[in-house]
């Protein structure tokens, strides 16, 4: 699995930075789809860290489009992923419309399309929202996350189909412009039972559109990571709006309690998974490292770190991933420059720390991506004393080389 030496990274979220001039012939692919969210949870203690990120270094040629951006950098796993997603969506829509046509024979075709697309989009949004925390709780779910942006784009397209058919059906061919009608036909904002639920859905669709339209890594780079990540955190606002849209629309019109129970169960599932994952992260943050000697803090024992893996500790309000590999210890920031993926949950592959989300790689000694990639994360000075890893809480500038501590140096003293 010699990724670094190939000089390629063919993940769907692909390299937002420019290749080194020395590697100008390296293959670069990027792709399009709804974004991976920078943090999977708004409950994370350090969710605001994204704001610290600077824009990726400018292109040597000053032209971001020189990355050879492609619409989608297809690979086998992405193809399999998309086939499964489209199969699932087609299955759901076919069954819903087929059974509805049978069970509710007088429902019009437009009504069935609106209901099928809307419910499919809402269900899919639940899946999108659950993938992040599931991956944090169990890494076996990571393949679901890798191409999650495509799932997001499909969610938007289904939502758009729902919205477009609804606007055509309810607002077109009238005495007002359809969009004006959508926004003005019901203005009972002060009444909960009469609240204009369609406006909530419209607003959610606008946000989904913005996320889908900017899901390409071209936009991640050009909007700058903080803005892009803030925009994509709006998926939670979208979810809240859609809960309102469903509760104040569908649930007020339908009589079956099954729909209310299903909506509630979906919300509880999303919330529970986020709380579970957040509590796991919080445990790291609450584990304050107190023993300080010569400016270093006692982080963990060498033995507690599995080979090629990391222990994650929180120092000075920042999570640090301490990796053990090839008889050495290195510490770098836990936050991937791409989409804030948890590097500490990654592995050292070919001598590179590999992010579990999209496979972005960093040299543990420097925190820099191997050429031709140019992302850099902060590094931390480490030392090993009596089988324990000590780290200097002060981060080095991203990309600063720090010699790894050798595990054989156990005799050293603080």
């Amino acid at each position, binding site marked *: 699995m010699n990724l670094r030496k190939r000089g390629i990274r063919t993940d769907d979220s692909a390299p937002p930075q420019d290749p080194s001039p020395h590697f100008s012939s390296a293959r670069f692919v990027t792709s399009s789809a709804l974004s991976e969210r920078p943090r999977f949870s708004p409950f994370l203690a350090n969710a605001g860290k994204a704001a610290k990120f600077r824009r990726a270094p400018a292109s040597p040629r000053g032209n971001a489009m020189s990355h050879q951006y492609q619409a989608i950098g297809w690979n086998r796993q992405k193809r399999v992923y998309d086939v499964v997603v489209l199969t*699932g969506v087609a299955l759901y829509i076919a069954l819903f419309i087929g059974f509805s046509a049978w069970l509710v024979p007088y429902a*019009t075709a437009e009504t069935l399309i609106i209901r099928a697309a809307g419910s499919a989009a809402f*269900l899919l949004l639940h899946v999108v929202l659950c993938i992040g925390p599931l991956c944090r709780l169990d890494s*076996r779910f990571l393949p679901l996350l890798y191409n999650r942006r495509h799932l997001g784009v499909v969610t938007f397209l289904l939502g758009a189909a729902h919205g477009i058919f609804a606007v055509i059906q309810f*607002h077109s*061919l009238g005495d007002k412009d359809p969009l004006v009608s959508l926004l003005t036909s019901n203005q*009972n904002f002060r009444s909960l039972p009469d609240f204009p639920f369609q406006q909530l859905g419209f607003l959610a669709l606008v946000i989904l559109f913005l996320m889908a339209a900017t899901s390409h890594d071209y936009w991640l780079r050009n909007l700058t990571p903080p803005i892009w990540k803030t925009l994509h955190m709006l998926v939670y606002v979208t979810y809240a709006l859609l809960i309102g849209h469903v509760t104040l*629309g569908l649930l007020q019109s339908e009589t079956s309690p099954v729909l209310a129970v299903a909506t509630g169960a979906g919300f509880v599932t999303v919330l529970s998974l986020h709380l579970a994952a957040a509590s796991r992260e919080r445990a790291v943050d609450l584990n304050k490292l107190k023993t300080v000697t010569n400016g270093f803090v006692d982080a963990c024992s060498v033995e507690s770190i599995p080979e090629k893996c990391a222990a994650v500790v929180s120092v000075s309000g920042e999570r640090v991933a301490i990796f053990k590999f090839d008889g050495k210890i290195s510490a770098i920031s836990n936050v991937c420059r791409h989409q804030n993926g948890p590097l500490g949950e990654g592995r050292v592959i070919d001598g590179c720390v590999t992010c579990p989300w999209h496979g972005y790689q960093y040299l543990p000694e420097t925190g820099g991506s191997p050429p031709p990639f140019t992302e850099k994360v902060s590094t931390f000075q480490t030392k090993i004393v009596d089988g324990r890893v000590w780290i200097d809480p002060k981060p080095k500038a991203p990309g600063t080389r720090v010699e790894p501590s050798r595990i054989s140096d156990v005799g050293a003293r603080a």
Partner: protein
Amino acid sequence: MNEFYVGYLPKAPSGIARCIRAVVVLLLIFAAIAAIVFAKVQRTLAPSVFEYGKLGTFEGTIEASPYPILIVAGAGSAESGASRYLLVAEGKHGADSQVVAFAGKTVQLRGTRIYRDNQTMIEVVSGSISLKRDSTRSQPPSQELGIFELAGEIVDSKCYLGVMNPGSGKVHRDCAVRCISGGIPPVFATNDFNGSPAILLLTDLHQKPLPKETFLKLVAQPVRIHGSVVKTGETLYLKTGPSAISPLP
């Protein structure tokens, strides 16, 4: 677990792939069950039909006020010996401007039938009304049925009779507002008119169209209306005023 997934490698590690295959199968099963359950629990809809794409030719006498109606000889109520078809234009528009020149006259027109229960409407093809003869048909007598206080919902007649199904309720509210605003005759749909469901055309106390701005905010929500009911042929009119319409809690 020692396996580690990297998305851009050709294959996922076998253990992870097995797990994901199981998850995907479960998700697909869940999607199938959800689709069937959600389809099953939908509210049943009243039998109403819009014969979209099926144009017919109709001949009868135009009654222009309070709402456009084509009185067609033949079937219908026993008293009148005629059917009374409400007329609307295409889209969310009333047919008033199309029929005004033909008030009281016998015409031929092309249109599409929309029907629910014993009520039929025709969506008139624009410009298809042609004069057959000036001779008019005598109006059937109207019958006062008395004063009623009814609970129900104000909706637009076109959607309620079949262009949309469901053509009532909150989800349909904006559409009903748009339709009524565009001139589609408003009807009051109640489940308890002398113990039976009924569809009553809403008028003012003089049996003229009720000014729509006076009740537009109350469309497609439960309301109570106090008024007198008049029956002309098989058409029921509910004569009321804005102050006699109140929202139900």
